[in-house]
């Protein structure tokens, strides 16, 4: 492989922000990608991995970022110094990119076929009939069902996985030498992710394409990479073959990154004290019904979506119940019903023995609201940006009639509990990192001295090392205060590490429910098995640092 010249050769690339105080985003990085090879750029947010891909595509945001030195050579031709017209011609023909969110990368008001057609129109001299045949063949190649139907569809008529397949078909339409994939599967469900990764692998082998794959997920690295390039703060920390970097990392940072990946093997079961139920659901159903006025007038039935059907469970004090499932499985709706952010259609929700399902209004719900608190997914949005941490923390306490000074005192103590300095009280959310904000959100929930904490994808938006710290904090707080935690996640690795019991949901129904050790190690239901199969990097043992030879 070393004999062939590299498709992409990046040498000592430096990128800075523009403006009065330029900050260096890339501090001189170098790497090569050879034909038929997949190089994974892996790193946490802010490591500069996306900027690297933008330089390569000559898509740096104008007036914000600029290349200060170094080269990025595609087949020996430097992209950095090439004219905009030249890089435009190269894009699509010689190099192509797939983005994270296929919905935003496709034009929502044009049919898929037309958008595919534009690529051929811009770069080839094919006739219209040839272009259509080529497009249909390309759709066929990415295993899209019924290519003629896809050709005439609009983006919103396809599923997320199908849209990403369309993007891949577009990217590979002109058989580029280099494919850049920037977190292409992050927005997809695990089972879809697995298919897309396999598809990229397969097409790459067929076309001998070089792939620059950007991800934050070590599991995905295991599944797709030949070589890995670990990035941090705009520098390459370590680079090498995947088995070498993952199996025998030379740098502390790489080791820490690998250690933070939760294992798929469930942690040992915790001893259970005398069971004391704090939250019980009995046959909870939630139906979303839409019946527009016209339908009512014509006595037509409206649209009904059964988001949750017959969900029952019991959560005891000090225990963690995980609800896992893919998007649309109804797991978040269950959480929102428990919190009465949604009104369940039928069923009972018992908080400390009292049914809160029929209650209406803030006053009636007050005791339950106090007992059940929530931690949201996106810490950037769950704190009011205009309020100081202190004001956010004491909001609930003030509602309950606690004097301001006393509440602030308690808030300060809780900030120390979650590992932040007391003077954070006077600061605003934007002055904290994502992980710190999630700590504040935890402190806010604890301010209410709840019995149950509902965490809806509470660590999904965080980098793995931060994720590990927040999970640790959550476990610590839970043990100290004997809390019950309802943990909603799509990530089986996280579920395996923190849950006592696991409930697997699909399309609003519970498919499997039992102790974590049972469900995740010896799944009974085919769907649970499929989910576990699809978990990225399942054939790598991160703790031992080697490939798993036989499935556990």
């Amino acid at each position, binding site marked *: 492989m070393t004999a062939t010249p590299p498709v992409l050769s990046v040498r000592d690339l430096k990128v800075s*922000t523009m403006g*009065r105080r330029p*900050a260096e*985003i890339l501090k001189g990085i170098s790497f090569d990608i050879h034909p038929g090879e997949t190089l994974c750029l892996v790193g946490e*947010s*802010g*490591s*500069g*991995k*996306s*900027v690297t891909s933008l330089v390569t595509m000559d898509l740096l*945001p104008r*007036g*914000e*970022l600029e290349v200060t030195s170094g080269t990025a050579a595609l087949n020996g031709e430097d992209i950095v110094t090439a004219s905009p017209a030249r890089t435009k011609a190269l894009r699509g023909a010689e190099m192509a990119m797939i983005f994270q969110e296929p919905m935003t990368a496709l034009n929502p008001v044009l049919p898929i076929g037309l958008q595919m057609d534009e690529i051929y129109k811009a770069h080839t001299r094919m006739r219209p009939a040839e272009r259509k045949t080529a497009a249909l063949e390309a759709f066929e190649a990415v295993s899209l069902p019924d290519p003629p139907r896809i050709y005439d569809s609009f983006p919103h008529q396809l599923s997320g996985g199908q849209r990403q397949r369309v993007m891949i078909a577009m990217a590979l339409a002109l058989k580029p030498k280099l494919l850049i994939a920037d*977190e292409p599967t992050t927005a997809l469900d695990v089972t879809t992710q697995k298919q897309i990764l396999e598809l990229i692998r397969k097409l790459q082998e067929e076309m001998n394409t070089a792939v620059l794959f950007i991800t934050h997920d070590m599991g995905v690295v295991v599944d797709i990479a030949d070589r890995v390039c670990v990035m941090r703060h705009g520098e390459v920390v370590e680079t090498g073959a995947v088995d070498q970097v993952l199996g025998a990392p030379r740098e502390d940072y790489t080791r820490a990154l690998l250690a933070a990946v939760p294992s798929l093997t469930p942690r040992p079961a915790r001893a259970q004290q005398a069971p004391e139920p704090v939250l019980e659901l009995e046959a909870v159903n939630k139906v979303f019904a839409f019946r527009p006025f016209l339908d009512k007038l014509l006595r037509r039935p409206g649209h009904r979506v059964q988001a949750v059907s017959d969900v029952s469970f019991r959560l005891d004090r000090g225990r963690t119940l995980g609800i896992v499932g893919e998007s649309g499985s109804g797991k978040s709706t269950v959480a929102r019903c428990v*919190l009465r*952010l949604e009104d369940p259609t039928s069923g009972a929700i018992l908080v400390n023995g009292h049914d809160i399902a029929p209650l209406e209004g*803030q006053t009636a*719900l*007050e005791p339950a*609201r*106090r007992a*059940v*608190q*929530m931690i*949201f*997914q*996106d810490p950037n*949005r*769950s*704190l*009011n*940006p*205009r*309020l100081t941490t202190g004001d*956010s923390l004491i*909001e*609930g306490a003030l*509602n*309950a009639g606690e004097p301001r000074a006393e509440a602030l005192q308690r808030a300060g103590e809780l900030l120390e509990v979650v590992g932040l300095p007391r003077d954070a009280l006077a600061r605003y959310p*934007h*002055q904290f990192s994502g992980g710190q904000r999630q700590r504040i*959100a935890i402190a*806010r929930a604890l301010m*209410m001295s709840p019995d149950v904490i509902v965490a809806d994808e509470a660590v999904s938006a965080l980098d793995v090392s931060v994720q590990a710290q927040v999970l640790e904090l959550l476990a610590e707080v839970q043990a100290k205060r004997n809390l019950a935690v309802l943990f909603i996640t799509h990530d089986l690795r996280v579920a395996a590490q923190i849950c006592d019991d696991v409930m697997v949901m699909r399309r609003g129904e519970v498919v499997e429910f039992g102790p974590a050790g049972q469900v995740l190690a010896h799944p009974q239901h085919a769907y649970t098995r499929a989910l576990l199969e699809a978990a990225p990097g399942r054939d790598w043992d991160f703790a031992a640092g080697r490939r798993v030879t036989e499935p556990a």
Partner: protein
Amino acid sequence: MSLTTSAPASPRKRLLENPPHWTTVLALIVLLAIIAMALFAPQLAHFEPTKLNAMMRLKPADETYWMGTDSFGRDLYSRVVYGARVSLLVGAGVAVGAIVIGLPLGLLAGWFRGLDAVLMRAMDGLMAIPGILLAIAIVALTKAGLTTVIIAIMLPEIPQVVRLVRARVLATRSETFVEAAVLLGTRPMRIIWRHLLPSTIAPLIVQGTYIYASAILTEAALSFLGVGIGTETPTWGNIMAEGRLYFAMNPWLVYWPAIVLSLCILSINLLGDALRDRLDPKMKGRS
């Protein structure tokens, strides 16, 4: 993703780092000059704006009568200076009034979904009536005067404010920090006050400037049509209305008030645009 998100600096520092466009500065100077003109009208005017002088009818401009005189021999310059008072007062009255009434209605409509349907249909009804027509009807039914004119111009502006505020509230209420507040047991009125109201302020200020400008224009139109404030009080509108009769003899009777009126509206709108760009993070970097 890994692009830097700069932390908001202090307003003063931001202003220094990103100085306003020269048109904005010019607009501000013009508007301040017009405000000063209204405030110091008695000192700036050469004559009483209503002082008649039969000897001096329709004189061209000279060093005593800077803009000439009208058909009653009144000094046009003094009348234009005094006219600024009515215009700015009407503009301010309408903008403040429309916001004071529209803001609470918009907040309530945005939060209480049941109220929304009723309130917004009423607003749709109000919007369906042409503003000037409604104003003429109100002024015709009641005694013409400053307050009547302000109310007449304000009524059709209210739906704009309500819709704007409601739209902001609908956008903000889906933020998770509002849901978090609900879970913390915060009562609806307090959620509206603490979490929803602040996000409506910036767009409201901008909308306020547009209402201000359009109110001045509507008042001038009403005065021009003779259904505004009585001719005993000079306004830019009724100066133009009177000047129209002698337009062939001395077009400057119309031109002067029209020029000042246009400058006033233009500068307010330019300032409104500048404010929008500054307050709306999405517009950052464009000018």
